[in-house]
């Protein structure tokens, strides 16, 4: 067995997980109140559900899912605008598979594909360069993703300019996660009083491992300084997650709020400097909407002026579409996304809204809270 396989098998090892679970139960006894821990990354949501980590927790430790995945927080009007381009211009539309089935107000990319439109799923944004080379019409890439994905897209934007490619455009839906995390903390105060009654005080955050690879441990110090909350940057194997929770509980018992790093094998204090540099070379922050959180200042990415010739919003004449708000239906995605309710509390969950027939983004996305709860925790 090579070292990589050894490491990953040991980070899944039941005995190792059991050691941490035992420590968590001991620590929980020292805390005489309910404590709520929120994970804010969709991959954590999925792994917690898959490995039954929620059920491993003592009664007073509650794990709550936050706005974890870029697909779930992409507002409906983004999908509506993409479909508008597809219906009104002769283009090839390239997308990550994650966005393919997300419903807009009246259609989805999948439905458009079935009706004959040219929609292609790419695994890497780099594939767009090939697609553009091989077709004689505009290619529009639906670019979504947080700081983790943005550097890869930025490299491709830069390469598009370098190669003087004239028919590749980017419909930027990328979002900066960090400003949204602060909004979430502020927002949670609005419903915190009722929330605490059922969930206990917010003890801290399980912070996203791969986003932290890019931004680095130092990007989170404000969580402690401004809000006196704890956070642990955590990896994605079961042992990582229970270790992260144990480390959080230790700071709660102390109590000494701090940001810790469980995922030291890949997350450094500074982050990836090349990735951060290319993000700020290509993108700049602007305000924008999040599903669940609404408008968040400086949280959306847009292409800088030197690259705006590749900006699909500048090239195509897209009307200002206001999506019919999902609030009008019984879909509770907005509340699920901020941890206000669990998927079980949505009236559509598992009845009208299922993975085969999803109503909201949290059920469509493979890493959405509703999809995770449906698959593993019913």
């Amino acid at each position, binding site marked *: 067995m*090579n*070292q*990589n*396989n050894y*490491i*990953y098998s*040991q*980070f899944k*090892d039941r*005995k*190792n997980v059991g*050691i941490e679970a035992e420590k968590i139960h001991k620590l929980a006894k020292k805390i005489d109140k309910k404590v709520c821990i929120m994970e804010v*990354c*969709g*991959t954590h949501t999925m792994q917690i559900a898959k490995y039954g980590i929620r059920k491993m927790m003592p009664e007073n430790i509650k794990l709550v899912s936050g706005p974890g*995945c*870029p*697909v779930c927080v992409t507002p409906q009007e983004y999908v509506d605008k993409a479909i508008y381009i597809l219906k009104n211009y002769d283009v090839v539309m390239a997308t*990550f598979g*994650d966005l393919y089935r997300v419903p807009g107000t009246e259609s989805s990319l999948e439905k458009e594909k079935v009706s004959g439109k040219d929609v292609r799923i790419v*695994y*890497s*944004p*780099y*594939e767009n360069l090939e697609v553009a080379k091989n077709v004689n019409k505009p290619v529009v890439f639906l670019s*979504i*993703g*947080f700081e*983790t*994905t943005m*550097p*890869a897209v930025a*490299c491709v934007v830069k390469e598009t300019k370098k190669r003087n490619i004239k028919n590749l455009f980017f419909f930027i839906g990328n979002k900066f996660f960090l400003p949204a995390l602060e909004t979430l903390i502020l927002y949670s105060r609005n419903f915190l009083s009722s929330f605490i009654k059922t969930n206990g005080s917010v003890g801290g955050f399980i912070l*996203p491992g*791969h*986003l932290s*690879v*890019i931004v680095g441990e130092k990007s989170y110090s404000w969580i402690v300084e401004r809000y006196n909350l704890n956070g642990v940057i955590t990896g994605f194997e079961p*042992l990582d997650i229970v270790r992260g929770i144990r480390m959080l509980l230790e700071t709660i018992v102390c109590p000494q709020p701090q940001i810790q790093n469980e995922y*030291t*094998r*890949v997350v450094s204090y500074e982050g*990836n400097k*090349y*990735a951060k540099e*290319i993000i700020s070379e290509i993108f700049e922050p602007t305000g924008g909407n999040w599903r669940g959180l609404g408008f968040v200042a400086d949280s959306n990415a847009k292409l800088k002026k030197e690259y705006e010739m590749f900006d699909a919003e500048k090239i195509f004449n897209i009307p200002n579409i206001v999506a019919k708000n999902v609030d009008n239906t019984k879909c509770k995605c907005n509340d699920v996304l901020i941890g206000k309710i669990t998927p079980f509390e949505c009236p559509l969950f598992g009845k009208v809204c299922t993975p085969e027939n999803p109503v909201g983004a949290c059920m469509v*996305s493979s*890493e959405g809270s509703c999809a995770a709860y449906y698959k593993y925790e019913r």
Partner: protein
Amino acid sequence: MCVAIPMRVIEINGNEAVCEYEGIKRTAKIDLLPEIKVGDYVLIHVGFVIQRIDIDSALETLDLYKQMQEMV
């Protein structure tokens, strides 16, 4: 969506690395980590190497668990 796959670099050609995991080979761009070398373990996200995996740090962590298991 931020899923990243751990792989080992077996070859580097220009800005591309050939990586391997359990017999599966993939190429990935190394623009975001140009200093990687053949033999390094790396994380790959949407076709780009985003980080080197510090194997020593992981083994150190696992050693602790090995010791704890022996104590039980």
